[in-house]
């Protein structure tokens, strides 16, 4: 049995590891966030004295068309983007972890949509998917489709366009995380599996996937958060349109905070977003624990 003193020492050692990051983090991020949470119960325009709002900021959301549209759109967006990006990036990472020719080239290229300026990426995307003159629709016409999608200009297709764009842009980013994760897998596991006469798929299913579970948890959580917080992409590709077809939560937060200067109301939407992500993360966190134990 370790003595109480050594227990305490262990705890202190652990805290000393965390402290450098945590202190900076707590002061510069945590405190403002707590302030923002408090704001959701207040009326404040950032200048005049605050006044108590109780839960009225939240109650008002029930009758807020902008909020309702953005909540629905954000959920649809996340449901589409998370699984697609996860699968594509894992697939890409596994392929680019092989000893294939020009591997470095392909890896670098996959990262391009993420690092290239968003202005350029969005411009290219919008030109390629331009409803009347873009090459994609030209090709569809030639293939004999009589009606082609309006992509970003059609309210039924705009969200799909944004989802495809996001997958394309973020695939390389998560591929990197998976690539790094793949390096951590003990090669002996594959050798053992090889001796057992397994095929490619079995090795992928029973060695790679379980070994990557910590990475996948990370990717899942980060992707979910990223999707719930999407803003830049929407701003560049559709400006939340047509109408409110791609209006997302952070867009609504921006409008409430910086167009109307209704910081309490903006915070209330942020809290809703925060709680949604927290629930999803908790579910995934429990899943991870069960998976790794």
């Amino acid at each position, binding site marked *: 049995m370790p003595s109480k003193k050594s227990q305490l020492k262990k705890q202190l050692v652990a805290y000393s590891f965390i402290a450098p990051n945590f202190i900076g983090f707590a002061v510069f991020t945590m405190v403002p966030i707590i302030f923002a949470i408090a704001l959701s119960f207040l009326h404040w*325009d*950032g*200048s*005049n004295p605050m006044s108590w709002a109780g839960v009225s900021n939240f109650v008002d959301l029930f009758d807020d*068309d*902008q909020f309702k549209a953005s909540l629905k759109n954000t959920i649809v967006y996340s449901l589409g983007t998370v699984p697609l990006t996860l699968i594509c990036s894992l697939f890409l990472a596994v392929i680019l972890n092989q000893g294939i020719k020009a591997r470095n080239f392909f890896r670098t290229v996959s990262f391009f949509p993420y690092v290239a300026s968003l202005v350029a990426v*969005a*411009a290219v995307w*919008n*030109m390629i*998917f*331009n*409803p*009347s*003159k873009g090459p994609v629709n030209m090709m569809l016409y030639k293939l004999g489709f009589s009606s082609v999608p*309006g*992509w*970003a*200009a*059609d*309210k039924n297709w705009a969200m799909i366009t944004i989802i495809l764009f996001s997958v394309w842009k973020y695939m390389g980013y998560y591929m990197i995380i998976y690539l790094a994760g793949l390096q951590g897998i003990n090669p002996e596991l594959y050798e053992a599996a090889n001796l057992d006469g397994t095929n490619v798929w079995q090795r992928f299913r029973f060695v790679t996937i379980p070994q990557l579970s910590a990475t996948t948890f990370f990717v899942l959580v980060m992707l979910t958060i990223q999707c719930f917080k999407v803003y830049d992409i929407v701003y560049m590709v559709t*400006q*939340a*349109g*047509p*109408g*409110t*077809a791609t*209006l997302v939560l952070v867009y609504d937060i921006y*409008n409430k905070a*910086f*167009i*109307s*200067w209704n910081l309490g109301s903006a915070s209330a939407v942020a809290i809703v977003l925060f709680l949604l992500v927290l629930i999803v993360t908790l579910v995934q966190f429990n899943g991870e624990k069960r998976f790794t134990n």
Partner: protein
Amino acid sequence: MKKVLTIVLVLSLLMGAVFANGTKEAAPAQAGVTTLKWALWDIASTTYYEPLITAYEAAHPDIKIEMLDLGSADFMTMLQTQLSGGDSSIDVVTIKDIPGYNNLVKRNLLLNLNDKIASEGVDLSLYGGTTDQISVDGKLYGIPFRSDFWLVYYNKDLFDKAGVAYPTNDMTFAQYDALARKMTSGMGADKVYGAHYHTWRSAVQLFGILDGKHTIVDGTYDFLKPYYEMVLGEQKDGIVQDYATLKTSSTHYSGVFYNNSVAMMNMGSWFIATLINQVAQGNTEVKNWGLVKYPHAEGVTPGTTLGTITSLGVSNASKKKDAAFDFVKFVTGPEGAQIVAKTGTIPAIKNEGVIQIIASKPGFPTDSASRDALQVAKTYLEMPLHEKSAEIEVVLNQVHDEIMTNNISIDAGIAKMNEQVQKILAK
């Protein structure tokens, strides 16, 4: 491991070096000199800031004006964040739009200028009524220094080539529509569009308010129907470029006009200076262009148009309010107007002399109609001052986008505007 250590070492050395010079502060201000900070946007591409400041500093050696560039795209957001919580570092504030002005006033961030205007004898009658339009309960929080209005730009060469008479300063909407249809020709790379509407809501929707019977914050929008019908009809018939294509390809209106692909384009007067410069530098295919007044509804005086004003105000938290106001007075006053006009920009004081300066700028069209087009009969603000203008604008922009992309019918779109704006007004 050794390598990692070396990298760490190098990095920490670098850090030390940069930190050392990063903490250096700017030299303290000279004794006896008051420095005023002016919040504005686009220093590099705006030509009138420097001459205004030079002229003012020459007359007031004890004042130094420092510019604070907050960028144009997010200007009002950045400005309002900087002013939050009573910071005194900004003295003079440029106000870019009316919803933003309304917010600044509501948030108590701007100084009420009434007393100063009275004591310093500022003549508000010079501003052609614009100061009344931005008074809140009789109090004025900013003085206009730029006053842009909408005109129709046209490509003379295209009209000559088609053998069609130029547009005139007295066009009804029906005549304008017919002319646009007449000027449309060609296919593919040779296609000439009769008219062009940029993707801003104001370029199309605000035709509806020019008869003075309705405003855009009314809460009922049935009066917009004929104008949407006209524009969507032109779009359907290929008279104007498709809104959806323009928007998704982020087409800038200037490129369209430069490339000889549109015969007429309605746009704000801010484009005059840019157009003159670009044509002079040979960056455009269009060589000869002209200006005419905005088209008007039946029975409305020609020269009735839309306007936007840019104003200057004094921050409520400034510690140098008197000096700041004096600078505002100079920039917005007759002297400032002269300087602004010399750069081809329309100042808020639009008297005969100012129009003369702009019209005689080299590169400005030489025909008399273009000069007369600068005479405005009546200007309606793109967004009138209203307590809820920011929120109303969000809704109007969304529904406009839906109508123009044919995602909703005109009637259903108008019904949606009516419903949602009335909800905002009732709150």
